[in-house]
């Protein structure tokens, strides 16, 4: 999930979710970054409406499933 969190750090701060930005955030956390995962993330989020997903989370009464 840390790749997703990194993307959300960026998104929440109004920054663009690019490969370089995600890599920088993860690296700053001391994480050994896997390029292919970053690429997959950026490509996947390209088609995801993050705003909507976040709004959905807020609306859903804290379903809060534990992360798999």
């Amino acid at each position, binding site marked *: 999930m840390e790749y997703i969190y990194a993307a*959300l750090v960026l998104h929440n701060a109004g920054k663009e979710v690019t490969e370089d930005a995600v890599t920088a955030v993860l690296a700053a956390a001391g994480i050994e970054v896997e390029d292919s995962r970053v690429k997959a993330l*950026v490509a996947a989020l390209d088609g995801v409406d993050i705003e909507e997903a976040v709004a959905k*989370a807020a609306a859903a009464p*804290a379903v809060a499933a534990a992360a798999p």
Partner: protein
Amino acid sequence: MALYTTHLPQWKQDEVEQIVSLANEYRLTGLVDLHGIPAKQMQEMRRDLRGKAVLRMTRNTLVEHAFGSMGEPIDGINSYIDGQSALIYTNDNPFQLYKKLQQTMTKMVARPGDIAPEDIVIEKGPTSFKPGPIVGVFQQAGLPAAIEGGKVVIRERKVFVKAGEEINAKQADVLSKLDIRPIDVGLSLQVAFYDGTFYEPSTLAIDETEYYNNVVLAAQQAFNLGVYAAYPTAQTIEPIIAKAAGEARNLGVEAAIYSKDIVELIIGRASLQAKALKGMTE
């Protein structure tokens, strides 16, 4: 290698140079399979890709030549070339390219000899055909057709061609008559070379739904953590207050702390308890 190139006719030399220069210019060099794409669709796909990717069709021998001349690691691309490969160049990352190419896929009518990509199912029900020799055509192809109420109907649901099986001429004819388009046609990525690494299609298929769900989950987790830890932000402050107020109410009622805001709740609780007890004495 360079020496060998000089023995090629000029147009071939130019072509090889072009392949190499595009590979240097773009971050991603890939191979796509053009098999079975009719010229008309091909044009549409090229148009769709304009500005996003460069598609280059050329002779396989020249492609091999070009990458061979570039040496490792990109020459590894040569081992992926087969029948009708074309080159594709883009600055997208391979996941993005794969996604775009998937979007160019269209359903086409089957031709004899095509392989069914998945089970081709014909549903039970009426067709638009009037009674006639077509019933025989259907039946000969193995379709349970009959005439009912002046119409040709399919009597029951039928798996007409199983996934992976070849579609024969009769089946192709029936499918085209019923306007069923079972064949995926489009540019399918064979391999992408990007930033020094090869990516095969099996690793490039992304489940966007999973990412979406994970974003929702992440947002919920962050919200939960923020509220749980009482870390006030614009998004968490109201639920935190609500939580605190709720806790205070609960405590007040549970401990029977007689405060104006909650005394009605305490009365309510007492009366329910009395009712419950009364119910047990009757």
